[in-house]
């Protein structure tokens, strides 16, 4: 007996000490520990959930369907060029629905040539329609699937880029399900800016303004819905100093000449004249050449810089610009310019995202939750501890000791697993405290029963433990069942609760059975006890 007591005591001491190492970093005053400690021994503080440290939790849904639509449009464009090269005249080619292209050739005799050209486009299935000069092209299902997955992945990466530049510590950006992205920004100070930064599609396009935009009659027709071929209406929305929004319509040539993909850098600069910030862009080599060609061929026309289908500015081209540099000016505040530069650098989102959930917790609220939660837990613990001593006297003290070990190990375990502590998690710890002593209560009551029957303390203790063991096991398993289910189906804070409860229950099996028993065994071997303070 004595030997096993020694080993059990050592095991207990070891596990407690181990747990303590993991608990220490979260206690105030840890910084005084020397650097060698902080490097080689556990030094990470307990991770706090957003509800405790403040921050923002966003759930974004990627409009992957749009990505497919965009791709289909691009394919339509490529087919048009390919047909043009082979001199096949097209009467019409247009996207139908999400993943289909309907085309009509003007000369039925060119059908075979057309089919040949189309066979080069592996991702499209060609099917004839009732009309012999029409062909319906459908994007292969595998390709649509791939596009959607790619879109989500790209959005994730782009958003990650943007958030990285935003400067939040320990952001978390993870995919959820097929189309959702979860973004967690702990401790963020300007949630509004973050939301705009993340949600913006940020598609930058350069298009030429159609010269007829100054023609009142044409504009009137266009605004009524009769657009000249290959044109569209886009608006320039400006907000003046008073906050009034004005929208100026422009007649634009539809063709996108350059996009943000060709940008290698975007920096904020301050204009010398009015000290107003602007964003200076630099194109890559190919983009630079295209830009040079466009500006060279269209002097005196206006080139519009469009972000998300909104015209930022439409300056007149004064001369050919070979340098591959451009400027975006507008009424920016320093912050707006900075955010625009971030978004251009990180790139456009391949598909629009929608924010479907936004939970923001201010830091004061988080702090408040921590203090209330801790206070309630401490008071609860005090009540339980006091009751145990009062009701079970010395044995109650032993149980309380086991409870203390239990808590230390629980917090240590949370730290070790890098589990996140949330407010419900703190509640879980409080409940674990109440449930932890239950194991001891069951044992003690059984021991009391045996003592009443006249057994000796040692025999009562042994029988008590043996008989109570299975009941204790059962009760822990049932609590575990619900805790595990909660972990599976719950959201962040609930998961925190489930983790606290599960770990608490598991550790309790250990401390109650190994811990308390060891102490009792030790007590009975020391002296031949006639009575047991229970």
């Amino acid at each position, binding site marked *: 007996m004595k030997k096993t007591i020694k080993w059990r005591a050592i095991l207990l001491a070891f596990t407690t000490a181990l747990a303590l190492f993991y608990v220490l970093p979260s206690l105030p005053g840890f910084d005084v520990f020397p650097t060698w400690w902080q490097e080689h021994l556990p030094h990470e503080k307990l991770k706090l959930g957003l509800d405790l440290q403040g921050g923002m939790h966003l759930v974004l849904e990627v409009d992957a369907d749009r990505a497919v639509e965009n791709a289909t449009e691009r394919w339509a464009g490529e087919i048009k060029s390919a047909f043009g090269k082979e001199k096949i005249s097209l009467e019409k080619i247009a996207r139908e629905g999400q993943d289909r292209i309907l085309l009509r050739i003007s000369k039925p005799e060119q059908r075979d040539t057309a089919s040949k050209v189309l066979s080069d486009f592996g991702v499209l299935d060609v099917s004839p329609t009732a009309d012999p000069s029409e062909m319906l092209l459908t994007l292969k299902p595998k390709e649509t699937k791939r596009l959607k997955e790619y879109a989500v992945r790209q959005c994730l990466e782009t958003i990650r880029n943007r958030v990285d530049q935003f400067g939040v510590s320990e952001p978390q950006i993870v995919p959820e399900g097929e189309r959702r992205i979860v973004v967690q920004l702990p401790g963020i100070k300007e949630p509004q800016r973050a939301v705009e930064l993340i949600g913006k599609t940020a598609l930058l396009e350069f298009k030429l303004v159609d010269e007829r935009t100054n023609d009142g009659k044409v504009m009137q027709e266009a605004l009524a819905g009769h657009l000249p071929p290959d044109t569209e209406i886009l608006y320039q929305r400006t907000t003046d100093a008073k906050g009034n929004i004005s929208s100026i319509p422009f007649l634009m040539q539809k063709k996108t000449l350059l996009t943000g993909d060709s940008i290698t850098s975007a920096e904020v600069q301050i204009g010398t004249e009015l000290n107003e910030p602007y964003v200076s862009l630099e194109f890559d080599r190919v983009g630079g050449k295209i830009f040079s060609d466009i500006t060279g061929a269209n002097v005196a026309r206006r080139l519009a810089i469009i972000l998300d289908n909104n015209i930022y500015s439409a300056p007149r081209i004064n001369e050919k610009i070979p340098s591959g540099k451009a400027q975006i000016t507008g009424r920016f505040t320093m912050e707006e310019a900075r955010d625009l530069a971030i978004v251009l650098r990180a790139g456009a989102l391949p598909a629009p995202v929608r924010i479907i959930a936004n939970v923001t917790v201010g830091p004061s609220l988080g702090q408040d939750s921590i203090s209330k939660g801790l206070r*309630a837990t401490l008071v609860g613990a005090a009540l339980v501890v006091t009751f145990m001593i009062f009701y079970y006297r010395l044995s109650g003290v032993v149980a309380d000791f086991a409870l203390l070990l239990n808590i230390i190990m629980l917090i240590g375990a949370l730290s070790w697993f890098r589990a996140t502590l949330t407010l419900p998690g703190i509640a879980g710890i409080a409940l674990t405290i109440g449930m932890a002593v239950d194991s001891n209560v069951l044992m003690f009551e059984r021991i009391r029963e045996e003592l009443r029957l006249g057994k000796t303390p040692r025999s009562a203790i042994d029988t008590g433990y043996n008989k109570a063991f299975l009941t204790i096991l059962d009760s822990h398993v049932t*609590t575990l069942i619900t805790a595990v289910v909660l972990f599976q189906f719950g959201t962040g804070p609930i998961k925190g609760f489930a983790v606290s409860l599960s770990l608490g229950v598991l550790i309790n099996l250990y401390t109650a059975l190994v811990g308390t028993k060891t102490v009792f065994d030790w007590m009975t071997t020391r002296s031949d006890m006639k009575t047991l303070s229970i």
Partner: protein
Amino acid sequence: MIELLGKTKIDFMGKRYYAFALSGILVLLGLFGLLQILRGHANMGIEFSGGTAVQLKFDGPVEVGKVREALAKANLPESNLQQFSDTSRVLIRVKKEFAEQARMLDQIQAALKQHLSGRGFVVEGSDEIGPAIGKGLRKAAAWAVIISIIGILVYVAWRFEFRFGVAATIATFHDVLAILGVMVLLGKEITLLVVTALLTLAGYSLTDTIVVFDRIRENLRSRRKDPLHVLINFSINEVLSRTIVTSLTVFLASLSLFFLGGEVLHDFSLGMSLGIIVGTYSSIFVASALLVEWHAQVRTKPARKRR
């Protein structure tokens, strides 16, 4: 030894018909609550229904009525207003159907700025949940409850015999329904935390029931001669002390959370506290009582082999 109760000889099973009546009421209450939820008439949390919730801290104590007026003046739809014990803090909740307009959050802030002139406030926290999320969560919550109940049934049926398993599961069901009914009756917001409380108390109530069942099973082996209801009575009396004390310890912790834990945990701890009481009651008056009833019915059939 200090004992809360000495050797008791309460005839629990004798009173079981009163208990059935009480339990019947509780279960009906619970079913009513469930019905209300399914019909959409219950106060569901924002995470289930979708919508916007914003917690504001004003520069000083503020009258809820004035806030309501300010929102009404801005034509903002019927919103749920709650004031915290710290009277400068207000929680405004607007449910899904209305919150689909862009940025209800901005509208609320603008309305307050405009119509509650001079009162400064700070947004302490906000929840904006779209309807898609709510649907997913409702499903998850329902599944969680179903799987928990199945898990419980399977486990108890495995550890004890089938009768016990069913009785324990019914008792657990009873507890969850009772507390759900009370929460709906009190008009409490049914949030994911409340569902958590329901599931946790389900697990805990089972713990309590098992303590009693263990003793019943032990006595079934050693005291075969006694009629069942006498044996069950005896068993319950034997473990009464420990049933109450184990519940008491968790009750103390849960009560502490209720009084000191803050608003977020308030409904959760209320559910837990009431649940512990009901759980203890159900171990005696529902689970064990059902065993007696079941056996009494079985008695009329040809004698079956007792395990």
